[in-house]
């Protein structure tokens, strides 16, 4: 199977993506949404023509609310600012009102306290999901111990998972830097779903490895068993991801603005997840096996 044979090439591809993502996150960072860092956001739509963006920026300056303005639709603005109280909100509304009649389509305000709590909860849930999955895989594959132990299946799955989380995070860091994409609680939700989904695919291949191990002749090398398992499950791995991707692509294009970034994060994550379960996870089993073989041979040689 070419996947096993050229695994180093696929490792390299993943490594480039992961290193690139880490680099991007450490250089540019992520743009936290208001639900993490606290702050306010208002979306207004003017009945007639909206005021010029510079004019608006100048007139909002005296309020000292650190407003950043982005145009939306043909007649609207989305204004982000620090967490404001009701009085500040009232003066903001009256400033906006001086440019003609407008409707307030949405107003969100999150205190910094709530934001830090959301951030902490997100971290905890990601760690919990990863831990739960390692234990679950170790449990599900508990009967498989030769030649690679069930714990190693779990650890390989987690390496694949971490890969699947890092890649969309990196891409959102790039998008954040160049296009202002924010990372919010929905983004974290997307990552968690990617975790669940990616392990889904990985399990399908592992499950086949488990089955083939039971039927295999004793002298068949493990690498061949893994290779066969990958090629046997290749179509279904791609197709199960395909249906989910189709749903998400539809959601991205017609689902409305509020879930667009969410579906984009999922699309990236699921592509990364499918890639990792075929080209990263299972070949890694072979690599681990090869290491073990080498160690055993080294021991023999030492005797």
């Amino acid at each position, binding site marked *: 199977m070419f996947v096993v044979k050229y695994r180093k090439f696929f490792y390299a591809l993943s490594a480039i993506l992961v290193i690139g993502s880490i680099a991007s996150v450490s250089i540019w960072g992520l743009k936290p949404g208001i639900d993490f860092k606290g702050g306010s956001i208002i979306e207004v739509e003017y009945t007639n023509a909206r005021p010029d963006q510079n004019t608006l920026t100048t007139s909002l300056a005296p309020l000292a609310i650190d407003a950043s303005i982005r145009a939306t639709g043909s007649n609207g603005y989305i204004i982000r600012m620090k967490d404001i109280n009701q009085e500040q909100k009232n003066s903001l509304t009256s400033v906006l009102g001086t440019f003609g009649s407008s409707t307030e389509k949405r107003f969100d305000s999150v205190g910094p306290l709530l934001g830090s709590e959301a951030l902490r909860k997100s971290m905890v849930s990601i760690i919990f999901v990863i831990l739960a999955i390692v234990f679950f895989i170790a449990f599900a594959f508990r009967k498989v111990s030769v030649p690679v132990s069930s714990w190693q299946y779990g650890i390989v799955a987690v390496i694949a998972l971490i890969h699947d989380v890092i890649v969309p995070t990196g891409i959102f860091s790039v998008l954040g830097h160049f296009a202002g994409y924010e990372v919010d609680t929905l983004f974290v939700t997307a990552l968690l779903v990617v975790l669940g989904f990616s392990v889904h695919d990985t399990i399908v291949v592992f499950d086949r490895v488990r089955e083939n191990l039971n039927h295999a002749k004793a002298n068949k090398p493990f690498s061949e068993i893994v290779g066969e398992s990958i090629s046997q499950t290749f179509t279904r791995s791609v197709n199960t991801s395909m249906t989910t991707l189709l749903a998400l692509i539809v959601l991205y294009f017609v689902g*409305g603005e509020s879930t667009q970034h969410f*579906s984009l994060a999922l699309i990236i994550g699921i592509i990364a997840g499918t890639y990792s379960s075929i080209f990263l996870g299972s070949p890694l089993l072979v690599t681990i096996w090869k290491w073990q073989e080498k160690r055993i041979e080294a021991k023999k040689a030492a005797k």
Partner: protein
Amino acid sequence: MLKTRIIAVFLLIIAVTIGLLTYYSSFAGSSISKPFKLGLDLNGGTHLVYKADTSKLSIGEVSVSMLALRDVIEKRVNAFGVGEPIVQVEQGGILGSKEAQQKLIVELPGVTDIDEAIKMIGRTPVLEFQTLSQADKKIVDDKKLEQKEYSIEILKAYKPTGITGRMLERAILEFNNTTMEPTVSLNFNAEGKALFAKVTKENVGNIVGIFLDGNPISEPVVREEIKDGKAVISGSFKLDDAKLLVRDLNYGALPVPIELISTQTVGASLGQSALNGGIKAGVFALIVIGLFLIIWYRLPGLVAVISLGVYTTLMLALFKLIPVTLTAAGIAGFILSIGMAVDANILIFERMKEELKKGKGISEAMHEGFARAWNSIRDSNTSSLITGAILYFFGSTSVITGFALVFTFGVAVSMFTAITASRVFLYAVAPKTTNKLSTFLISNGFTKTIISQSLTK
């Protein structure tokens, strides 16, 4: 075979019935009207989060006080007259945070002018004692007969005493020994005691009215000077009213101080467009996935599409029955689950194809396909359920818990429809003989599946 077909038809009839019920109950006016519950982000409205300061309470008092707080706020919100407001206590904070954060969530559907609402929820009520002389009482009584309520003019007749709720040490609910009617007894602190003695001394025979937020709640007549700083408010109290009064007096009406930490307002138009987008995405996703399944998996693909229809119907019915409050994220979770619901089908069909390649007959291949794919379906769905559950319990916002709820239900329901329902349907329509056409129908993909004729019977 006949039995399977009967079961299949029966299943279809049930699904169609549920579908029709779900569809027709969406419209107001029909006798079984039960519309979907839409979240604020789809319906428009305001979502407020308050932090409650429980630092001055002992741990045992916290939950009782939070419930009391909820009741008070609920009353105020109800008075505002919005449809179906939600007021709930939420315990924030998780492992690692020292004390559990107490929060109060207030949802006001349809309200987008939050200024007024916020003022009303957060106001600090004032307890005051004001006197009314006998002479003035006559005038007031006459006016009351005329106007049936306390006009500003009437309220002017009362004279402030300077005694306020701040000087109250404690209010206690008691019962009159003879009539068994509930009464409220008041204990003043030292400052209040002195002032109360002075006021009662000067006003024997007059009324000392007790006012909450400027509204008189009790108007006892003073019979003698009260020196011990104790007073009893009697009157025809209902037990609940007396309890409420005691609580209001003890806690200055808001049992726990609150602070607004988050507001979210969505205009109705934005909500409507988000809803339309969600519905459109759902329908499109069903069509695209359906086409993919039929083109790639042929007859079993068609069966999967029917099962997917059953899945969609069941989920929509569940949303109404439980009921699940649908949000934009919830709908996204549902659409995602549509994509994942057919995963089990794909695993089964691929397995069937493999068995066919091994030379098994159609019927045997189908049995093997369902039986052998089960392991990987079970394991992979379990991991999704784990994710869903963790998201639900650790989700920090209603957006995330809404998503998690729909997602988890979706995984569970899809295991039924993709395995049980599609097995029944597939067995019902599967070709009996194994020949070129039937193998083409049951097989999939674009590489030719070769069957060995030797095994076909």
